[in-house]
């Protein structure tokens, strides 16, 4: 297989397979959660569910003081790489073009120098989270294979994208193919791991807020 054939496979059949698994997996899992239903709450409602739920979706974004003190490394590096991932994924021109092809609309891109800087921030922040996870005794105790797998499949597209942009080591078609394949791996793994938090996070926050709201307590 030549490198151009590899690239063609990655852009064609590979992407098709990965998309089917990703979309189907995510839809099934989200439906499963939503349709399972909750037991009817027999207690009398002491407040609204909706407003409290929505409020919590936002307020939980800011860590409280004690939590921040206790795990500042996790929070700072976590935020850094999530913001970095957002910028790199959604503001670089080739990525916007890709999304536009699928969803039908695009938006302005950021200059490559900005993308490059955020890519470096993301890479560093992700390495910090990994080191922190492996050196902190409690974190290490809590870490299982899935945590490392999800870290790896998230890190891979970032680092391969960075290498592909700077053409390090291999020729451009191979680097681009490897980058696309790494994204496909991420898409395939996504629905079956805790990467699903990207979709379930706000549902879970809403439930938390809603429960508190029903009881009439602060969330």
């Amino acid at each position, binding site marked *: 297989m*030549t*490198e*151009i*054939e590899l*690239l*063609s496979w990655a*852009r*064609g*059949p590979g*992407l*098709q397979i990965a*998309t*089917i698994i990703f*979309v*189907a*997996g*995510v*839809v*099934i*899992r*989200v*439906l*499963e959660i939503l*349709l*399972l*239903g909750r037991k009817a709450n027999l207690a009398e409602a002491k407040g609204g569910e909706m407003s409290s739920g929505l409020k919590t979706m936002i307020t939980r974004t800011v860590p409280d003081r004690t939590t921040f003190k206790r795990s500042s490394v996790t929070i700072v590096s976590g935020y850094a790489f999530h913001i970095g991932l957002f910028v790199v994924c959604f503001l670089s*021109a*080739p*990525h916007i*073009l*890709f999304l536009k*092809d*699928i*969803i*039908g609309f695009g938006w*302005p*891109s*950021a*200059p*490559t*120098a900005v993308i490059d800087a955020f890519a470096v921030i993301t890479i560093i922040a992700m390495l910090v989270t990994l080191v922190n996870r492996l050196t902190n005794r409690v974190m290490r105790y809590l870490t299982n294979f899935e945590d490392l797998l999800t870290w790896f499949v998230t890190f891979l597209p970032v680092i391969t994208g960075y290498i592909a942009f700077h*053409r390090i080591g291999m*020729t*451009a*078609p191979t680097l*681009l193919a490897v980058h696309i394949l790494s994204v496909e791996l991420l898409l395939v793994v996504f629905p079956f791991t805790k990467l699903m938090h990207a979709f379930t996070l706000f549902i879970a926050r809403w439930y938390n807020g809603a429960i508190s709201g029903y009881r009439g307590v602060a969330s």
Partner: protein
Amino acid sequence: MKKDLLLKDGNPQQGNPLGGTLGESLRSQGVSRRSFMKFCATTASMMALPPSMIPMIANALENARRPSVIWLSFQECTGCTESLTRAHTSTVESLIFDAISLDYHHTLQAASGHAAEAAREVAMEENFGNYLLVVDGSIPLDNPGYSTIAGISNLDMLTESAKGAAAIVAVGTCATYGGIPHANPNPTGAVSVKDIIKDKPIINVPGCPPIPVVITGVLAHYLTFGAIPELDHIGRPKVFYGQSIHDRCYRRPFYDKGQFAETFDDEGAKKGWCLYKLGCKGPTTYNACATTKWNNGTSFPIESGHPCIGCSEPDFWDGGGFYKALSLPTEDLSKTAVYAAAGAAAAGVAVSALNRGKKNASNKIHIKTTIDDLTQE
């Protein structure tokens, strides 16, 4: 210059009238030392070698012997030969052709039929082990009858002619990687030279067609160093194919700034912005177009406002469309996504029904613990 390429009546004995070194042959033609220096400087520039090597090149060319060259054309469009003969009418580059003895080229030679084939056979015999074999066009393997010359199948002619070759120069994307004949569904079973010949050094000079000075540059390199140039992983000389079009493109700053032409006639296109979104294959294409340029250095496709189609890469014809940006999927992903989502929604409902069933069943077999259970001895 075309005159120089033509053989005299296909008589192979006359094919190599100058037995001596290139220097002697040029002097006998009244070429001054200054002309030779100019030629060497231009050759160095052509081969993308540092100017500090000009004296060394002059010395090597001075003492080089005229090699016999046999040029075979298989499944091709003659575009490669056209690129070479039309684009360069200048005296300086034509010296390269004075420097070789082109003993067989069925499009350019005056001789035809048996005389032409005899010229090839004699050249092969006389220069066995020393001649340079140039090939353009792919070789059909499905049915040898798809392409023959003088009743000889391309495969037979290639294997026979390759035996005594010092090296093979595969010119054009067809000879190097199968090219357009090899494109899906490849009706003739076309393959490249490298797919057939395994025991000879092969220099791949891809492009559709290749840049003429790249072809002459490779010949000059062979003449100068008596060896094949350093090649990349798919057999291309690194001096010409070492950098991507994207990395050498004068429109690169627009890419970095995020300024793109969205269509062929918008403001961005008029301002000369990056053609990435219009399907430019510059980032994955390795060739010298951006620096060497075409038509005697006039411009290259991107300079004329058209994205690079990646013609010097294998399978460029099947790369998912010339006007589809590189980061785009080659197939319709949104349709796939919608179908997958619809199918998954149905599956999700079904799975949820099963889950509910399971939940109800476990609710049913659930036994409540009462105070009696706890007070039991």
